[in-house]
């Protein structure tokens, strides 16, 4: 049985995948490649081997949960894959991915960098600027994603060629 198709399914699953991939960008680029911070580097600064291993475990758990979120998003996307045939679906999905990445940056940034302060993007004398930059980048992604989702909706409402409900092509 094909589940009922609607834009919300694409946006929801795309947002989860985008948030998961955004988490991987954070973890891989900022934690591992650049080594600017670790998950709990403000609580337990990684200055000894034990402290580094401590942070490594929490980085691993962060990646595990991020992986889980990505898998759930992909599973939902697979379940509603017929929706990818809808008119405007490409823009909607691209917008949802950007929205998810941006939401990850904004929410993770607000909670972990500003409220609880378990780590900062780039600790040092200019850490506030880096933290705010991280939020601004996230907000820009949210705005771009929202704009793309809106463009996808307009594309579908201005002469789409695919039936929203069944996902089957109609017309010539």
């Amino acid at each position, binding site marked *: 049985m094909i589940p*009922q*198709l*609607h*834009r*919300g*399914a*694409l*946006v*929801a*699953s795309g*947002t*989860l995948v985008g*948030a998961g991939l955004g*988490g991987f960008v954070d973890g891989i680029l900022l934690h591992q490649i650049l080594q600017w911070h670790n*998950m*709990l580097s403000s*609580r337990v600064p990684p200055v000894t081997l*034990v402290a580094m*291993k*401590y942070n490594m*475990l*929490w980085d691993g*758990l*962060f990646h595990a*949960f*991020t992986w889980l*979120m990505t898998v*759930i*998003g992909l599973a939902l996307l697979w379940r509603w894959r017929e929706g990818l045939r*809808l*008119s405007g679906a490409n823009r909607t999905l691209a917008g*949802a991915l950007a929205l*998810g990445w941006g*939401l*990850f940056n904004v*929410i*993770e940034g607000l*909670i*972990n960098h500003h409220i*609880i302060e*378990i780590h900062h993007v780039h600790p040092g004398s200019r850490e506030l600027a880096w933290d705010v930059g991280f939020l601004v980048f996230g907000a820009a992604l949210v705005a771009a994603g929202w704009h793309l989702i809106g463009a996808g*909706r307009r594309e*579908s*409402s201005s002469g*789409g*060629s*695919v*039936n*929203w*409900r069944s996902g089957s092509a*109609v*017309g010539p």
Partner: protein
Amino acid sequence: VRTSVFDERFWDNLLVICLPLVILGLISALLYRMGLGESRLGSQRTNPEESR
């Protein structure tokens, strides 16, 4: 690993790590609900059988 797991702040740390991801899941569910209304409009507009 033992130091991390038996740390007295283990559950606190776990909650902190999970909290943003749980919020993102809730937002995703909200976006799913928000999209329900649009689908019905879309199906009416794009289905020629219904527009006749």
